[in-house]
C-alpha cells in the first residue's frame, strides 16, 4: 500500500517530514518540560496544516517559476555581453528586494527605539521615523552593492575567500570605531536582508551566470552572492551609526 503512494501526495509527505522536527520540539517542551496543556489545540492544528500546504506549493512554484526565470535571464545577459546592464540588473535586484523586506522594516523600527532610548537621536516620532528610513535605505544600498560585487566576482573569477576576508576585516575595524548601541543591530542586519524570495532568485542568477561563462564552475563560482549580501550591511550600518552619532 505505502509503496504505491499517489504522486499528488508525495510533495505533501515531504513537507510533513520537513516540519516534523518543529512539532516534536514544541510538543516535547510543552508536555514534558513545562508540563502544561497546549492552548488552542484546534487553531494550532489548523495553522500546522496551512504551513504544510503552503510549503508544498512554495517549493513547487520555485521549481516552475523562479528558478527557470532567474537562470534564463542570467543566460540572456551572458549572451548579450553587456556588463553595464548585467550590473544594473544586479543592483536593482539587490536594492529592490531589500527595501521592501518585512523583516528589515521590523528590525529598523526596533533599532530606532534603541537609538532613541540610548540618546543617539532625539526621542521624537519624527526623528525615529527618519532614523528607521535611513537605516533601511542604507541596508538596501549595501545589498545592491553586494550583488554587484558578487556578479563582478563571477565575471572576473576572483577567489571568494579574499573578498570575504577583506569584508571581515572591514567589520572588525568598523566595530572598533562604531558607537556601542549600533553594533548588535548592525551584526543582525546582515542576517535579515536575504528573504525567502530573494534567495532562490539570486542563487539561480549566480549559478546560471557561472554555468554560461566559459571557464567558470557553477559550484565553485556560482554561489557566494548571498554571502556578500549578508556581509556588506554590517559595514554599512556601522558606518551609518558613525555618521549619525
Amino acid at each position, binding site marked *: 500500500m505505502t509503496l504505491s503512494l499517489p504522486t499528488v501526495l508525495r510533495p505533501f509527505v515531504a513537507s510533513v517530514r520537513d516540519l516534523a522536527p518543529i512539532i516534536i520540539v514544541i510538543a516535547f517542551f510543552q508536555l514534558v518540560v513545562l508540563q502544561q496543556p497546549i492552548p488552542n489545540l484546534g487553531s494550532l492544528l489548523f495553522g500546522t496544516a496551512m504551513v504544510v500546504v503552503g510549503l508544498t506549493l512554495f517549493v513547487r512554484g520555485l521549481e516552475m517559476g523562479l528558478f527557470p526565470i532567474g537562470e534564463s535571464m542570467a543566460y540572456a545577459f551572458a549572451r548579450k555581453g553587456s556588463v553595464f546592464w548585467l550590473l544594473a540588473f544586479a543592483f536593482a535586484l539587490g536594492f529592490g528586494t531589500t527595501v521592501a523586506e518585512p*523583516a528589515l522594516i521590523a528590525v529598523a523600527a526596533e533599532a530606532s527605539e534603541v537609538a532613541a532610548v540610548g540618546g543617539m537621536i532625539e526621542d521624537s516620532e519624527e526623528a525615529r521615523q527618519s532614523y528607521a528610513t535611513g537605516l533601511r535605505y542604507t541596508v538596501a544600498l549595501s545589498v545592491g552593492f553586494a550583488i554587484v560585487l558578487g556578479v563582478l566576482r563571477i565575471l572576473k573569477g576572483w577567489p571568494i575567500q579574499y573578498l570575504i576576508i577583506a569584508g571581515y576585516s572591514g567589520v572588525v575595524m568598523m566595530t572598533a570605531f562604531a558607537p556601542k548601541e549600533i553594533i548588535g543591530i548592525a551584526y543582525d542586519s546582515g542576517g535579515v536582508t536575504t528573504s525567502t524570495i530573494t534567495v532562490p532568485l539570486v542563487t539561480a542568477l549566480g549559478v546560471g551566470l557561472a554555468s554560461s561563462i566559459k571557464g567558470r564552475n557553477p559550484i565553485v563560482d556560482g554561489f557566494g552572492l548571498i554571502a556578500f549580501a549578508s556581509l556588506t550591511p554590517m559595514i554599512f550600518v556601522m558606518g551609518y551609526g558613525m555618521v549619525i552619532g
Partner: protein
Amino acid sequence: METLQLILDTLLSTLRDVLPIAAILFGFQLLVIRRPIPNLKKVLIGFGYVLLGLTLFLIGLEEALFPLGKLMAEQLTDPAFILGEGVSRVLHWDDYWWVYLFAFAMGFSTTVAEPSLIAVAIKAQEVSGGAISVWGLRTAVAIGVAIGIALGTYRIVSGTPLHYYIIAGYIVVIIQTIYAPKMIVALAYDSGGVTTSTVTVPLVTALGLGLASTVPGRSPMLDGFGLIAFASLFPIMSVMGYAQLSQWRARRNGWRDNVGE
C-alpha cells in the same frame, strides 16, 4: 469569515513584497533583454504557487507556531519555572540549561523547515551532480544554527560582549577556509545568509527579547539583539566542517583500500 479576511490581508501584503521583484524581472526582460520569456505560462503559474504557498505558510506560522514559540520562550525564562515556585535566589548562567537546550532544538528544527535553505540545497545538489546532497547540506546548516543560537542565548545570560564571539568566529572561518575543499567554500559562505529568514528570525528574536527582559541586569534593547548574527555565522563553520569530514573519511577509506590491495 475572519479566516478569509486574514488570508486576503496576508495575500495582499505578500503581493506587495513580491511586486517590486516581479517589476524588476519583467522590466529587464522586456526593456533590456527584449525577448519573450520562455514558457511564460508555466512561469506565471509558478509565481502564483509561490505567492499562494508563502501566504498560507505565513498564516500558519502566525496562527500556530509563533504564539506558542513566544509563550514557551517566556515560560522557560521565567524564574518561577527555573527555580520552582516560591524559591528565590540569584540565578547563575548554569540555571538556564533548559533555555540552551530549547534554543538548540528550535534552531535545528526551524532551519530544517526553512524554505530558502531548501531552495539553495536543491540547486547545490543539482550543480554538484549529487556530491552535495540536499539532506547533508540541510543537516549541516541546521546543526550550525542550533549551536549558534544556543551559544547566543548563553551570551545574553552571561552578558559578554557580542563582538568578541563574532571576531573569534571569523578567525575560525578563515582558518577553515584554508583547509576546506575548494568546492564547498562559496556554498558554505552562502549558507550563513540563507538560514535566517521567514521561520527562524521571528522565533529567535522572540527568544532573545524574552531572555534579555527576564535575566537580571540585561536590557532587552541592548542585549536582545545578536542571536541572528550567531545564527548566520555558525552554519559557515558547520558546512565547511561537514565537507572536511567527508573528505577526511573518503581519504581514510582510500588509504585502507590501497593497503588492502
